């Protein structure tokens, strides 16, 4: 997509920096107001993305939810400034595997993530153990070109996160340098998303993020 004019002179558009949120909207997310805090946190983050005004990169945001019996593309991947936020609703099971396959499909599709895009960021938010077969789906994501190279971040929310649930998130991140976020008290969730926001905006400004940069934000 190039900007063109009546007399053919065109300008270059910033390179997209895709951010996909992978949000658990299972029934349990309705407890303790978790889904409300998540809605607010993600909406705030996308607004911050939209305000980020860099010549070299433009943050795009999309949301995949998993709940009920399947995964849904809640918001397609578009420039953050074009997102009209719609709240997510919690109900049903935790079909993470279906969500991972949906994400893999999006990342490999060049009409969704153009070739010129920066390395995508995928953020997984969950409050418990998946209810479907997720291992094979995760390995499909990690072995796909864009999925494997993506910066994968994850945060566990609420009191019900047990060792098994954290293990799932760790396997998703698959990078010892990056720690799983923990928001046992749901009100710690916005802070985690502030961190994600800072990490992503740093990437779009400098075009890269080093492990060192990540540490900088992990306070």
């Amino acid at each position: 997509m190039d900007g063109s004019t009546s007399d053919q002179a065109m300008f270059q558009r910033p390179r997209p920096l895709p951010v996909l949120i992978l949000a658990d909207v299972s029934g349990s997310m309705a407890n303790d107001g978790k889904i409300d805090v998540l809605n607010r946190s993600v909406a705030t983050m996308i607004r911050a993305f939209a305000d980020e005004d860099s010549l070299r990169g433009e943050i795009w945001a999309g949301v995949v939810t998993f709940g009920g019996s399947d995964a849904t593309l809640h918001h397609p991947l578009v420039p953050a400034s074009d997102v009209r936020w719609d709240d997510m609703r919690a109900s049903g099971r935790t079909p993470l595997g279906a969500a991972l396959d949906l994400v893999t499909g999006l990342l490999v599709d060049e009409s969704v993530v153009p070739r010129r895009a920066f390395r995508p960021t995928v953020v997984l938010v969950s409050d418990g153990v998946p209810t479907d077969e997720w291992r094979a789906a995760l390995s499909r994501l990690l072995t796909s070109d864009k999925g494997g190279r993506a910066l994968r971040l994850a945060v566990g929310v609420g009191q019900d996160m047990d060792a098994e649930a954290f293990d799932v998130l760790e396997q998703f991140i698959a990078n010892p340098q990056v720690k799983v976020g923990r928001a046992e008290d749901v009100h710690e969730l916005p802070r985690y998303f502030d961190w994600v926001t800072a990490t992503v905006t740093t990437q779009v400004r400098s075009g890269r993020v080093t492990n060192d940069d990540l540490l900088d934000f992990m306070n």
Partner: protein
Amino acid sequence: MRTEDDQAIELTRRIGAGGQGEVWEAGGGRLAVKLLHSRDQRAAERLAAQLRTLRLLDLGDLPIARPLALLSPPHLGYTMVMLADMVALRQLFAPTGRTALVPWYTETGGLRRRLRLLGRTASALAGLHGRGLCYGDPSPVNVMVSEPLDHEQVYLIDVDNVAVMSEVRGNAYATRGYSAPEVLAGRLGVSSLSDAYAFAVMAFELLTVVHPFIGDKVYDGEPDLEDKAFAGELPWIEHSTQPSNRSRFGLARDVVLTPGLRTLAARAFEAGVAEPTARPTVAEWRTKLYEAADLTLACPECHGTYFGSRATCPWCGVAPPPALFAQLLTQVGLEAGKPMFAETRRALLVQRQVVTPVSARTAVAAVDELEQSVVDLWYDHNDRLTVTNRWDRPVWLVGVGGGPRMAIAVGHDATIPMFNRRSGWELHFGPAHEPHRVLRFSRLVRKDNR
């Protein structure tokens, strides 16, 4: 929160946030406060020491948001003057959304304003370099410019990068696309030469609306290729001998760059990639940018501005407005009572019914940060030229071939007729017996060069 000199500071509104910190409004809107993040105690102490040094440096009248006071611990940061009615130069770099390029370019001030804003930016950087300092991270987000189109103020912010001596440092926060290759690679620290590189990129991009290293294959390719381009491993888009990275984007280069500016860009992006000393200095850029701006006309039809060398307006195709051509000469002395002139290759255009200010840069070859007008020129419908003296000394109008000589006192004006018949009236910026500069007027005649 308090400053080191124990003034209370109340932050009222967050204006901006970035990798290095946050900027807040304070002091009832008169002050801005930059709060810095730092990795650890040692980094914080280093930064505080650097800010303290910076506060003490004599930066004269340079338009730079210098630290006024440091915050006292545990906070790290400084207060500076609040820049009201200013926006980041970035706003003029590219339209957003589906806007058409040419109308947007004109609506944001067009070619002339861009040349002049860049001239002022170069001037501020040259002022730092002249004091043995370098700025560190010239980029479109670190230069603030007047928001109203009839103002041309420029201010450098983000002074935490200003360095006295260059040291090698990480590049994580350098603005992508504006780092000199040697800094990007970590071979050398920032310097006036890396400033000159970053400035060259900014100047070329602001004028042409295309980054000098983002050719089509880079634009369409993966980010890794862009990294290579920014590292100087690919030829720039207008390389004189290597056409492998040309771009289909942006405005026609010869419409927005004079031959002189194109030469500077080629020096910066060919030899200057690997050899920092081959780059033109920011002072060279300043000179060429201002001189280019002096040769622009404003289209009466589309209000776009363009170089008077063109046969028609490049933006809308309409014929140019009437104008006078004012050649700049230096009167070097008198021989047998007759003035002797040295020619310069400089000139300015005086468009009919448009006030043309002449600054000390032209009148006495002085560096004037503010580009204040010393005389205003006004060429009217009846082919008369009025000169208004706004200076602190008289100027003289001299008729054709040394004809009548008319002094214009401070605060006065004078009008000369007859541009339809004869040319050659001169405006002298000094008395006859001293060397001084002269503008010699003639009508700009249009050749219908098809």
